[in-house]
């Protein structure tokens, strides 16, 4: 049996930055491979470098050393314009605080990345509807964020993240702002996404979320201290 191809390959990644004149080593020589169809939960105490790692993998921060390859593209060496384009089409982001555009409807929020990628209007409207139906919000496409609950807003954020069919979905504490019931619904949605083929990397403190992932990576002081595959592909 052939193993699935790698979506992400990080090698000896470091990220240092100065705080009050002192260098802080947020990520220290970390290496990580993620195959297509995997769902990796990165866990660890606060300050262990989880979010910094996610930012590096998502090309919104640059490593101080090492290499990060996503679908064969070296993210660490990209210039701003190239990294922006890569984030638009290659990565889907989900944030703890949803960060939907408050003046746009749910459908328009989902359309935003497609509009940026110059997807024709008819096509992006159809896909936005399809994605919102997929996340269970088919009847709320015209609602604005303030008319939606926290869980619904996070669903719209997931639909937005999937808009341009990214190779990798990165989620930073996706259940962090949700109550237990809504958090469980979110985990179910992520699980469905993963079963349907989406490769996911989540950073979380939520044990239930980590427990749902196929693989759990433990970080401490900027390094991986444990890497356990719970459910193989």
């Amino acid at each position, binding site marked *: 049996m052939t193993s699935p191809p790698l979506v992400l390959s990080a090698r000896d990644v470091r990220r240092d930055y100065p705080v009050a004149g002192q260098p802080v080593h947020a990520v220290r020589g970390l290496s990580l491979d993620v195959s297509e169809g995997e769902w990796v939960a990165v866990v660890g105490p606060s300050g262990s470098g989880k*979010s*910094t790692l996610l*930012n590096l993998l*998502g090309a*919104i*921060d640059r490593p101080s050393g090492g290499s990060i390859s996503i679908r064969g593209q070296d993210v660490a060496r990209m210039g*701003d*314009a190239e990294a*922006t*384009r*890569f*984030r*638009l*089409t290659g*990565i889907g*982001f989900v*944030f*703890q*605080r949803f*960060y939907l*555009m*408050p*003046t*746009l409807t749910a459908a*328009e929020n989902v*359309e*935003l*990345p497609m*509009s*940026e*990628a110059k997807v024709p209007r008819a096509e992006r409207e159809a896909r936005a509807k399809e994605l919102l139906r997929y996340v269970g919000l088919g009847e709320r496409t015209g609602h604005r964020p303030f008319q939606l609950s926290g869980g619904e807003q996070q669903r719209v954020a997931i639909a*937005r*993240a999937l808009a*341009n069919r990214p190779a990798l979905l990165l989620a930073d504490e996706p259940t962090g702002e949700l109550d237990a019931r809504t958090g469980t619904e979110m985990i179910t949605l992520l699980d469905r996404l993963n079963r349907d083929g989406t490769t996911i990397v989540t950073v979380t403190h939520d044990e239930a979320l980590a427990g749902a992932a196929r693989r759990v990576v433990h970080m401490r002081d900027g390094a991986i201290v444990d890497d356990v595959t719970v459910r193989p592909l």
Partner: protein
Amino acid sequence: MILRLALATLTRRRARTALTTAGVAVATAMLLDMVMLGSGMRESFRGFIEQQGFQLRITPRGTMPFDTEATVGGGAALVVALQGDPDVVRVAPIIGTKGFVTRAGTDSVIGAFLLGLDPTVQGDYILAEGRDVAAPDEMVVNAAWLASTGYAVGDTVALAAGYEPQVRRLRGIKTVRIVGRGRFVMLAGGDRAAALPIATVQAIGGEERRDRVSVVLVATRTGADVEAVRARIERADPRLSALSTTAALRFVDERLSYFRQLAFILASVSLAVGFLLVTTLVTVSVNERIGEIAVMRAIGVARWRIVAQVMIEGVALSAVGAILGLGLGLVTARWLNGILATFPGLPAAFDFFLFEPSAAFRSLGMIVLCGIAAGVWPAWRAATLPIARTLREEAVA
């Protein structure tokens, strides 16, 4: 989508946007008024002197037309001499003095400015009622004269060239008929005035006014060198000063230069106020949305699109403010013009604020440019923010 986001951002805080737009409108109105004021008086003056159709004004040496009561003798000979110049096509002698009448039905005496002129070539009044002067004992008066004296067009009155208040006696009396009502363009709204043939005014003035003129207007033939004619006249008679339209405008320009500088300073202040208003609002708006902007960058929205969004906000604010300000500026200009027109000694028909479409568009353009400039700093800030750090700080906040 970016345009939609920019405009939606402005309507998100309606009251704040409305207040800023009102501020920009006021700044635009002031800018427009100052631009109109800067050129209005000069152009108004030019309109007056060109409307008369005379290129030269000849006065007693060292005086300006009607600036003093000075006159020059030998008026008839002067007119003949001027008519002898091959470049001169029309000569209009004028004498300005005071005239008196008793108020209708009373013995109270009313004084007025008395203009002796040649009715066939005059440019000092525009007939509004009745007919023009056609005989030595006819006169045209203005509305203020009629209101003060209680007479009407068609009445016959005893016009006096002098009045001795100690003994309450009028002198140099002539009976004249009011044949018309005119608007005297160079006089203030409340000034009383009457116009008669110059010979009549000279005659009732006695020896003091006999054959004297205050100013002689000269029209030159088309294509003539006005400055050469002016120099010839001054050389021929050293008692005279000749003022060309160009020189008169230059003189007015010099007198109005401080006024224009003031208008320029106030216009610059208006621009600065407009700029600060827009840049403050856009900066505050960007600061409020710093997390949203970081997320937009994170999900792949290009830097220049963020710049465009912020710049559109600044331009939209300034453009709407400028359009509102145009209307406001025109209304305030009209209102201020009404107030300034009642200033003593200023011609009633004088326009302080002259609306020129090019000036209005220049003002609008300057305000919109200000809006563009005002968006540069917040747009640059929004486009260059460090995405990861901003998201971290927002999450902590």
